[in-house]
């Protein structure tokens, strides 16, 4: 006892040192341990003494862990982490064995994260003036209370919160609708916003439940649409929740029966909505989103559904995003996708289906990229012709919406420069800085080499700017007409690819060489340049043989635009062969070819050709449109 009293300072006994050494696998002799123990004691004491000066200068009475760490840091010692908590750590004795220890409970992070009691925020530091003593006499009034940060929620609000969350996450769809509507328009729920955001951030916990995810996304939508709410920095949290739905390989995706694709589409749509309406709240948000999308896209380990999400996300963010992220990344990505699509094994069926999904999504995205780029070029050329782009993009947006294939494009109010300026603003040190825009023809060329005719078909099916819709000519499959070449104001937009459909109608399904007469001159022709490129030269040798220009360059040649050619009407069931996947530039692989045979049903033939074109790329998306084409037979095989 007396010994202990005399000892004024805590000491580390050499036994402890020995134990510590043993725990790291070092055997210490008695002597060394004694020396070490003494040194440890001294160093501890020194650090404590040094740390006290930090306390004194911080004008505190209590020595904090931070003070001690500062002292350690200044003496070039590693700091002690993990003891920074504000509350004192309980120091407990253990009865058996005279052991003392600091209680360090394990904390269940999941529980902590999903708990509904959100910790109160910190109030702003403020200064309050108070006349303490007047003429040196007496306290006039007490110093007053300290304003706290978050007033605890009123009873009513709490009830509202519970009801709404219950309604939205509950089973009753009607209740949910009502709740969402209220959430969209209620002007008094600002105080609840963090709570709702918190609930929404629970998406990660329900990744197995598409319904719940959908509901949460709807909740996001309602919050975003509520004009009375200022989202502030909560935008970030909402975006991350939505991104989760877009990008993550949700547990629900394991079952192919679950239509997580739609969820992703919806989430992507929502993302673009949040971004266009609230993107200004958080600086650099656009950039962050693009970066994370790019990361997913460039990560081959990620499942295809994630890639799909990234593609639709990019698509939703507008064509500039596609141009900047997806387009440059396409060559690298294509190889992976091709491998998936080329694998015909049964075990790969599911993956392949997913691959087609991605393929379709990419196609949609790049197609709009081309369109919008062409449009922007037109705009640039026309200068201030403001009316046209609005209507044109409007038309595009509408059409695409009606197809249900992709989220709608950005709101039309978005000025074309918006994205670019965004990128520049947040683009310090970003990999896109050295990004240079690719000219439209070059881009088209490259894309064509990936997608082949499917791209061409789709692209061609759009109503030309100011052009007349293709007339239902007798010719069974008219890709499209020469685009309003007469329109004088389009004179300088000739660079735009005009006609890209490339179809062969072969008499037989197997696609034996056919005697192709001169194709109808439906090819897109750009004045001053011979852009004709036969489909054969682009990929199919059979066609090449019949090409009107045998002397043309080999497959290596890169014509700017492929020319569509159509055979004469044939007897028998016409078979269409489309080069769905074009050859990749510089790679020696065959293009993907789809062959389609139609039973010549009368309505079919009378359909305007663009209808086909619409449906065709749907191949990847098996779900909806196929049903209507029950009579058609889709085959996915390589003909040669």
């Amino acid at each position, binding site marked *: 006892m007396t010994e202990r009293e005399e000892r*004024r*300072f805590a000491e580390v006994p050499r036994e402890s040192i020995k134990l510590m050494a043993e725990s790291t696998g070092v055997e210490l002799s008695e002597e060394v341990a004694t020396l070490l123990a*003494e*040194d440890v*004691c*001294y160093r501890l*004491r*020194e650090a404590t*003494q040094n740390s006290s*000066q*930090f306390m*004194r*200068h*911080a*004008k*505190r*009475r209590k020595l904090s862990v*931070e003070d001690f760490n*500062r002292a350690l840091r*200044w003496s070039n010692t590693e700091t002690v982490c993990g003891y920074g908590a504000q509350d004192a750590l309980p120091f407990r004795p253990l009865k058996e064995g005279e052991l003392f220890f600091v209680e360090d409970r394990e904390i269940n992070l999941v529980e902590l994260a999903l708990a509904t009691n959100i910790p109160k925020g*910190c*109030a*702003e*530091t*403020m*200064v*309050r*003036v*108070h*006349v*303490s*003593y*007047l*003429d*040196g*006499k007496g306290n006039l009034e*007490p*110093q007053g209370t*300290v*304003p706290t*940060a978050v007033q605890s929620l009123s009873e009513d609000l709490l009830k509202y919160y519970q009801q709404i969350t219950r309604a939205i996450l509950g089973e009753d769809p009607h209740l949910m609708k009502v709740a969402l509507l209220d959430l969209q328009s209620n002007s008094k729920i600002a105080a609840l916003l963090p709570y709702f955001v918190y609930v929404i951030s629970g998406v990660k916990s329900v990744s197995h439940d598409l319904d719940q995810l959908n509901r949460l996304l709807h909740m996001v939508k309602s919050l975003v649409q509520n004009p009375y709410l200022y989202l502030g920095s909560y935008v970030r949290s909402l975006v991350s929740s939505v991104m989760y739905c877009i990008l993550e390989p949700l547990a629900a995706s394991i079952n192919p029966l679950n239509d997580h694709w739609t969820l992703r589409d919806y989430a992507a749509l929502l993302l673009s909505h949040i971004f266009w309406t609230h993107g200004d709240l958080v600086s650099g948000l656009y950039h962050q989103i693009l970066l994370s999308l790019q990361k997913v896209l460039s990560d081959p380990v990620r499942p295809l559904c994630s890639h799909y999400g990234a593609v639709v996300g990019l698509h939703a963010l507008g064509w500039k995003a596609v141009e900047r992220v997806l387009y440059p990344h396409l060559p690298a990505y294509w190889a992976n996708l091709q491998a998936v699509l080329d694998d015909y094994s049964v075990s790969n069926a599911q993956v392949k289906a997913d691959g087609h999904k991605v393929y379709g999504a990419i196609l949609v995205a790049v197609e709009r990229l081309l369109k919008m780029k062409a449009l922007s070029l037109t705009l640039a050329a026309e200068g201030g012709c403001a009316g046209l782009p609005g209507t044109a993009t409007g038309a595009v947006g509408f059409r695409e919406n009606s197809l249900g294939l992709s989220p709608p494009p950005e709101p039309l109010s978005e000025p074309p420069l918006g994205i670019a300026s965004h990128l520049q603003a947040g683009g310090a040190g970003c990999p896109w800085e050295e990004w240079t825009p690719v000219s439209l023809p070059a881009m088209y060329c490259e894309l064509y080499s990936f997608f082949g005719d499917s791209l061409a078909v789709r692209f061609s099916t759009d109503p030309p700017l100011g052009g007349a819709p293709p007339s239902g000519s007798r010719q069974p499959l008219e890709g499209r007409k020469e685009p309003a070449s007469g329109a004088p104001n389009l004179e300088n937009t000739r660079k735009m690819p005009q006609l890209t459909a490339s179809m062969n109608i072969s008499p037989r399904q197997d696609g034996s060489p056919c005697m192709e007469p001169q194709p109808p001159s439906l090819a897109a022709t750009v004045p001053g340049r011979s852009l004709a490129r036969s489909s054969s030269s682009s990929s199919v040798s059979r066609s090449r043989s019949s090409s009107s220009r045998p002397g043309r360059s080999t497959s290596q040649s890169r014509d700017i635009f492929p020319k569509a050619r159509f055979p004469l009407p044939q007897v028998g069931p016409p078979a269409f062969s489309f080069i769905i996947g074009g050859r990749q530039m510089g790679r020696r692989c065959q293009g993907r070819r789809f062959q389609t045979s139609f039973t010549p049903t009368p309505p079919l033939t009378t359909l305007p050709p663009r209808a086909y074109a619409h449906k065709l790329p749907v191949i990847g998306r098996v779900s909806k449109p196929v049903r209507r084409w029950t009579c058609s037979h889709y085959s996915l095989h390589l003909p040669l």
Partner: protein
Amino acid sequence: ARHNSYRGKKMAAVQDAPMELDAEKETKPEILSDGTSNLSGNTASGTLSSPPLTAGGAPKQEDQQTLIAVLQFLRRNKLTESVEILRREACLEDQEDSQTLDGSGGGKGDGDGGDANSLLSRVSIASAAAPQSTLTPIPVKSEYDQPDVSVVLSAYSQQGDPSLYQVYYSSLKNFIESVLDCHRAELSQLFYPLFVHMYLELVYNNHENKAKAFFEKFSGDQECYYQDDLRILCGLTKKEHLKGNEALLDFRTSRFVLRISRDSYQLLKRHLQERHNNQIWNIIQEHLYIDIFDGMPRSKSQIDSMSGSFAGETRREVNKAKVFYGLLKEPEIEVPLDDEDDEAENEEGKPKKKKTKKDSMGSKSKKQDPNAPQQNRIPLPELKDSDKLDKIMYMKESTKRIRLGPENLPSICFYSFLNAYQGLTAVDFTDDSSLLAGGFADSTVRVWSATPKKLRKVKSAAELNLIDKESDDVLERIMDEKTASESKNLYGHSGPVYGVSFSPDRNYLLSSSEDGTVRLWSLQTFTCLVGYKGHNYPVWDTHFSPFGYYFVSGGHDRVARLWATDHYQPLRIFAGHLADVTCTRFHPNSNYVVTGSTDRTIRLWDVLNGNCVRFFTGHKGPIHSLAFSPNGKFLASGSTDGRVLLWDIGHGLMIGELKGHTDTIYALKFSRDGEILASGSMDNTVRLWDSMKAFDDMETDDFTAATGHIHLPDNSQELLLGMYHSKSTPVTHLHFTRRNLLLAAGAYNSQ
């Protein structure tokens, strides 16, 4: 003296390490001049003759080797004369019996050993001194049995029997306790420095257990105000530890200053000579500086009031330098007449009174204070128009100033920082009380407007191009209304901010931080303009000169630095404190800077030449607040011990002690006229003191001025005019507005 220098050289050469020869040469004669030259001379001459024969009796063989080594060394360095002397004396010594040595010579040997030991220790410490390349010893084999020089010389540090330290010390203790009361108090001053040095010597020589025992036995005898140091000492039991502890290294190398009357000193000397207590005598010679004065010995209370610092008391001659403490002449500024008319209208009547007041002020400013420095002693920035406007404002305000006094105490406004989770560490007000800045432990600096006028930034360059520069309200137009807010945050530091200071023109703010930098912020754009790097350790405090442009900072690196805002390197480095410089203040005339330190001393530095012109001891704890009286004559200092000390700068004397606070005093401020001193402390109180009375009461006769022996009346209770509690808010800063309203600031502590 020549001998001494020889010896010094020899030591340096033998150690083959850089050392400060100059210091040795300089300090030695100083000691000798204390009327002890006889004894010292003996010791010195005996040095070379007598080897360090310890009382235990070292083997003769070793002594021989030592001598040989020394001789060899001297010869190599062509110190032939010394060689001769040593030869002769060594031969003589050889014939002597070791027994006789034990009696007289042995003691001398011990003394030398102590000397050598200290030298060695110093040598091992010194790292930055220039190496003496000419004296590099190369071991050369000769006819003698060649011992390694350094090994042999290390024997010098093995002087004195460690077990006898206790005997030495207790014999001295017995002696001091037996002398007359009047001498006892004075001689008791020896206890602490001797205790520390003996303990350190034991530690240095690896007598760990002896050191511990020594500490156990005598640490209880020391004055209570040395507790902090003893606590540090207590943990230090190894030579290796000594190396990293700069404070103690300084203690060893610097001399502890004692003031002892001649009578007491003679008494001590006689005792030590009679008892041959050379161990102690050596320490006194080597490590202590005894400032002997003629006259009555001081009383215990007198001694206590001045002691307590890390390095003893002040040497008398230090505070003899002339200090120009007077204020500079105020520039003459014509107050526009129409303003006066306005005021006359505003406040009915009394225009006459006002006029007289103004006149008196004018005459005051015209008269040149004899104690003031020359106007251009240090270059000061020229007054700008805005400064003149401000001066006019100041004069107008000061006419409305309340005259404070014991009967008329100021009202206090408390600025409570609420929700300062991040920890409020420093506060400053602008002189006109319009802005308030807080430094926080989370590295931010925040500026609040203390008036309804919001803080606005200047517009961006592009926007500034658009405004009409010719318009009258251009100063208003350049401000960006969109940025108006009550407070602004300044981000830039990477460690807690420990000091903030506004420039007098309210355009800049300084902040000093743990990250080792002082930053200058613009209060127009609320951005950082400069980061001054120089202190490579935490900067504890910074303060702007009352005329702007200059500022001073002090930190953990134990120096204070004087900067000019447009120089990125310091103009002056004030070095001398033995521990951290904790607070820094500019003198009202900007010619001096005062610094307070953890070594419990205060130093006043001359900005012109960087000299330390005043050195105040008496605090028993680190000094955390300083304040000059408005007339520049007096200084108040507050420390962790809860006492405020008042100093007369001109005479260099302590003139008052204000006891009452129970915790560290972080804030001190004189009222605008200097009648009231306000002190704010960690104990959540503000106390007001009658500084006028304190200054008037002091003895200013020539004798006290000459000796510096003041007798402090214990009149704290009389001087205390008021004590005001805050609810739970330590007082971090105090400020008197121009009308003498007292503003206090601190962070509300909810726990």
